[in-house]
Structures are given as C-alpha cells and as structure tokens.
C-alpha cells in the first residue's frame, strides 16, 4: 500500500511539473514571438537606440522599420535642398544622431536648432553619384512637437 501510495503521490508531482514547465515554455515562445515578429506592428514607430544604430546602421535599413524618437536639434547642415540634422536623444549620453531631412519631404513645422521635437524616421540605403551604396541613413518622414 505504502508503495502504491508513494507511486500515486509521485505521479501527482510529475504531472504538476509538466504543467509548470509547459506554461513556462509557452510564455517564452509568446515572448519570443512578440520580439521576433514585429511585422505584425511594422507600421508603428519604435523607440530608438543610438548605440545600436551606431554599431550597425545598415541592419536598421534592411528591416525597413520606422522609428519615432524624441530629440533635441543640436546642429543643422544644409546642402542644396537637403538638410542634415544632428539630434541628441535622451538616455544616450555622448551620442548624436544624424537625421536627413530631404527637401521634398512635407513637414508640418520648421526645424530649428535647440528645438526638442519628435521625429518620425525610417532607415534607408541610398546611392551616391558613382553608384556606391550609402548605407543606414535615417531619413525624416515627419516631425511633430511633443
């Protein structure tokens, strides 16, 4: 009896462990799906990590994601119709993010130095006059005031 009782208790314990393990796996799989399947919400802006961008900007371009970030305009360089805006993003000390504002992009507001704005950007790869790739360039789609 005693042996069957112990076996019975043991079976109950095993079933409980399986259930807990299965739940944990399910949670992990769901979490992974949430991270690894952004396409489900690809049209929505993402928070931006400058350090990651600096390390591998072209990867950002290949994903084709759009990002929304808030930054302060530190400098503006103009060449022709296009402008290059350097912004500092909160939480990224000693980092500046270069953003290209193309001349044909319709913007709601003016960008001036010292403004803190919300930039809607996407990462692309272009080509220079010789046909060489210009990788990982963040191009401003829209700008708004916080």
């Amino acid at each position, binding site marked *: 009896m005693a042996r069957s009782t112990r076996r019975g208790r043991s079976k109950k314990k095993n079933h409980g462990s399986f259930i807990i393990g299965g739940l944990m796996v399910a949670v992990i799989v769901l979490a992974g799906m949430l991270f690894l399947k952004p396409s489900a919400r690809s049209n929505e802006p993402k928070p931006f990590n*400058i350090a990651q*961008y*600096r*390390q*591998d*900007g*072209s990867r*950002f*371009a290949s994903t084709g994601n759009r990002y929304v970030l808030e930054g302060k305009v530190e400098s503006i*360089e103009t*060449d*022709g119709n*296009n*402008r*290059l805006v*350097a912004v500092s993003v909160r939480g990224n000390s*000693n*980092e*500046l*993010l*270069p953003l*290209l504002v*193309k001349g044909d992009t319709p913007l709601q507001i003016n960008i001036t130095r010292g403004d803190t704005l919300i930039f809607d950007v996407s*990462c*692309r*790869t*272009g*080509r*220079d*006059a010789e046909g*060489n*790739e*210009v*990788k*990982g*360039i*963040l*191009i401003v789609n829209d700008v708004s005031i916080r």
Partner: protein
Amino acid sequence: MKTFRYIPLIPLMICAATAQMPNSFDASGRSAQAQNGVQNDDPLRAGESPPPQIFGMELPLLDPSNDTVSYGGGHFDLGNNAAVRERFEKYLSQTPDDSEQSRLYRRNMQEILDYTERYVRGANLIGSRVLVKIGRGLYNLADYPGDGSQAGVLASAMVSALDVQRANRRRDQANEELDKELDELVDKTNSLTNQNTQRGSGRRNTAGGAGGSGNSGYSSHTFRIASNTAEIARLRAQQGTNVAANQAALPLAKLNYQSVVLGFLLQRRYDHAVIGARVYRHLFRDGDTRLDLDENSDAYKTFTGITGMPPTINTIDSFASNARREVDQSIDAVHGALAQNKLGEATNRLITAVATGEYMQSVATFPAEQRRRIAAYWQLRKRALSALNARDYATVESIAAQMREMDVDFDDSLLMSYTTGRKRQSNFALRAARQAFQAGNQEEFRRLATEAAMIWPQNPALDEGEAEIARVDSFAPQMEEFRRLLERREFRTIYTERERFRVVCADHELEKKYTEVLELVAGTDVLLARLKQGVEQDRTMGPCAAWEQITLLLKEDDRYSTDSVFMEEYNKVSSLAHDFVEALRYAKECEERGEYGSALSSYYRAKCFFNGSNLAAEGIERVTKVIVNAQY
C-alpha cells in the same frame, strides 16, 4: 779655343747671374720640385710656355740643372757661371797673400812691365842683352808659387824665339860667306874662261906653230872651269837650303810664341800677356804682327768681331791692358761701394774683378776684412736663392730684411711682391681646401691642399690644417657610429649622447644632420612636455587633444614613429583617450565600408568627447556631404 769666345762675355754672364736676387731664382719652383722628387707637370719643362708672370711682370727662371736663365723671351746660358761662383767663393775664403815673397814677386813683375813699356815707347829695337835681362827676370818670377811657373813659360818662349832668330842669323851669315865664296869662284871661272878664249884665237893666227902645246893648255882650264861651276852650284844650293830653313823656322817660332801669349790671355794672366805682346816685335823684327789664326776659329771671330780688324799681337796687348785697367777700376769701385755700405754693388763688382782678373795684383791683395764683409753678404744671397728654390718664403723675407740692412741700395720690391703673392696664393688654396673639407669633398680638398703645399711648403697654416685633419681623423669612429645611428633612425640615442657626437660637426654634411636630429628630438621633448601639461590640466579632453596632435605629427613626419619616448607617450594618451580614439577609428572603418550613417554617428560621438577635434570635424564634413548628396 771655344772657351776663348766667352771671355768678353764673362762680365755679362756674371751680371746675369748675380744681379738682383729675383734674377736668380726659379720662380716656378721647378728646380725645387726636381730636388724634392715632386712630380712636375710644369709645361716649362717642355719649353713651350713662357716664363710665369706675377702681377704682369715676367720673372727670370734659373734652372740650376743646366745653368740657363730665361728672361724677356731670351735664354742665357751661364755656361761657366757655376764655376765662376765656385772660384769666387774660393777667392773670398782665401786670405790675401801679403808675404815677403809675394811682395817681391809683385815688385819684380811691375819692374818688368815698366821696363817693357819703356822699350815699347822707344823707336829703336832692343837688343838681345835687354831681352835676356827680361827673360832672366821672368825666370826669377817663376820661382813664386802663385805665378804657377807661367813667367818661366814666357821666358822659355822668348828663349826659343831668340834661338830661332840666332839660328836664322847664323844661316844668314853662312849665306853671306857663301856669297863671297861664290863671287871668288865666279871671278876665277870667268878668268879661266877668258884665258881659254884668248888661247883659242892665237892658234888660229899662227897656223902650224905651236899647235900641240896650245891644245894641252886649253884642256887644263876646261877642267878647272867645270870644277868651279859645280862648286858654285853646290854653294848656291846650300844658300837655298839656308833660306828655306829660315823661312820655315820663323813662322813656326811666331806661332809657338803667339800661342803662349794667347794662352796667358785666356788664363787671365794679363801681366804675362802684356809682357809677351810687347816683347814680340823685338823678338820678331820683320814687322809682321798678325796673329796666325784660322779664319774659321772662334778666337779669330772673337777678335775680328770686337775690333773689326784682323787680329794682331797688338790686339792681345790692347785686350790685356784694357782688362788690367778694368780690373783695377772694378777693385776701386768695390772699395768705394763698401765705403758707402753698398754691399750688393760691391759684390757684383768684385765678382767681375775676380772673374776677369783673378791673378791681378789688385785682386790678389784685396783686404781680408773687406772679403769677409762681402762673403757674409754673398752667403745671405745664396741662402735667399736656396730659400726661394725651396719656396720658403718666410725665410726669404727674413733674409731680404737682413740684406736690406747690409745694403742701402738693396731693392727687395720685386722679391717681396713675389713672395707675398705666392703666400697669398697658398693661403687662398688652403682656404678653399678647408671649405671643400667642411663640405665633405675629400677629392677637392686633397687637390687644393696639395696645391697650397706646393706653392708654399712652409706655410704655417698647413700645420694647423694638418692638425685639424688629424683631429678630424680621430673622430672617425664617432662619425661612423653617428652615421650608423642615423641609418637606424635612432635619433633619441644621438640626442642623449649629443655631447659625444658633437665632433661630427667637423664634417659639414654631418653637422647639418646632427643639428637636424637635435632640433627634432628637442622639439619633440618640448611638445611632449606641453601635451603632458595639457593632459594634466584637462583629464577629459586633454588626452584627446594630445592624441590627435601626436597622430597628426606621425602622419606628417614618420621620423617620430622611431622615437621610443614619443611612441610611449602616444600609447599612453591613446589609452587615456580610448573612447575618443575608438570612436574615430570606428567612424573611419564605417566610412570605408560605406556605412555612412554609423560613420557620421561615430564622428559625432568622437566630437562629443573632444569638441575641438579636427579629425572628427573633417570626418563629419566629409560624410555629411556624401549623405546629403546621395539618392534615396
């Protein structure tokens, strides 16, 4: 006989040899070169180039090897000049013979001269008695050693001439006696001939008379006549023989006597020559005083060249008498010049007197004290000549100063200008050699130094130069090590041991490199000190600024990369400015990969670490331009 031609030229030769000093030295130093065994490439050896000129003046050249002086386009062969000098020096070293025997000799010689002069002036011929007296006097003179038995030779020549004359007279007397004999024989023969003729005519008148006896008388006269005729022929032949003997003996005797007298002239024994010439017309009374010389001989040409007339015994008299007068005048001039401290002129005059009339009484009795003065001056002159040939110009100038003190007339202007010019030439060559040495041009240095030494071997600057060269040669190990360190670019080692390597400055090229190295390392040290100070003042940006400056210097001049101290500091600041350095490095890497977004972001990051970074600013500008102008 050839030497005879040069007798009138002796004064000229002496003057050419013993005029002012520059007339007697080898201006080009050829003889000195020959003596020193120095290779001589002087074109004058080939006789093709003119003598050298200094300041436009042609300098006489004396080549002691053949005693030839070249001057003014002419070449003077001094011939016996060396012998003349030697005799002159011997004469100066001799003490005048003032012994009783010498005085007696001179007195007797003078008496004979006066005696002959008196008879020369007389219209009458002197007799044998006078001639014998003169001959005896000459034999007595021959006992004096200084005469060299020359008076005896003259006396013997006179005796020989007299003997010939006596023989001639004996033959003349014999001929006179033969004439008498001949006259008598002729008379007798004529008488006998007449008798025969008379007898012959009487027989024809008395035909058949004493015809037989008449024939016998005719026969006896005929034999006597024939005998006389033969005797007459023999006597006349004897006379002819005597005449021929006289005619043959006289020219021979004249020739013998003339050669003796001429020999005295050649030996410059003018007293003997004068006596011999004056006695001549008394020995040979035919009035013919012509010298029996071959017209092609040098002696004949010399005499005719001077007088333009055929040479006679009187020419010798004139020559010798004039030479005696000249010698005496020269000696008087010597005394006068010495009295005025004109040693140069006195020396020249005495040389002339000795060369032309060594055996003259005035020369032989020239005082010893005066000889010593002239000998001292002569020695100085010889030393100057030797010094010139040795190109010892300092000694020449010193001697010239002494000669100027001794001789109020001594003109050293040409000599001094010559020595000064040569000394300057040597110094100029030496200076150029020094410059070549400093420039490291060893070949040019060697050539110029040799030239300087050739021009003035005693140049004191040569010793200094030699010492300098020796000193520099002793630096060779340091120089070699310096060059090795330069090659290995161990500038810091050179700088650390700069005092030891300072000697390389003797070489102009190495000196430049030495200075460059010192300036480089010292400048580096100053820069590093300043950068260290900046790092200490700003621990954040200071290292970034230092790193950037060091990096720029390394790009500009790769010599910094060989400096251990510099590179140590570079590594140190690289560590301190790690984030800045890494940001720049990564920016550059991204830029090269075409990751312009990341590159620009990295340049921004670098600029955040060091706002004044030129490297970051340049990168931002460069990458921004690419991004802005690209097509998306």
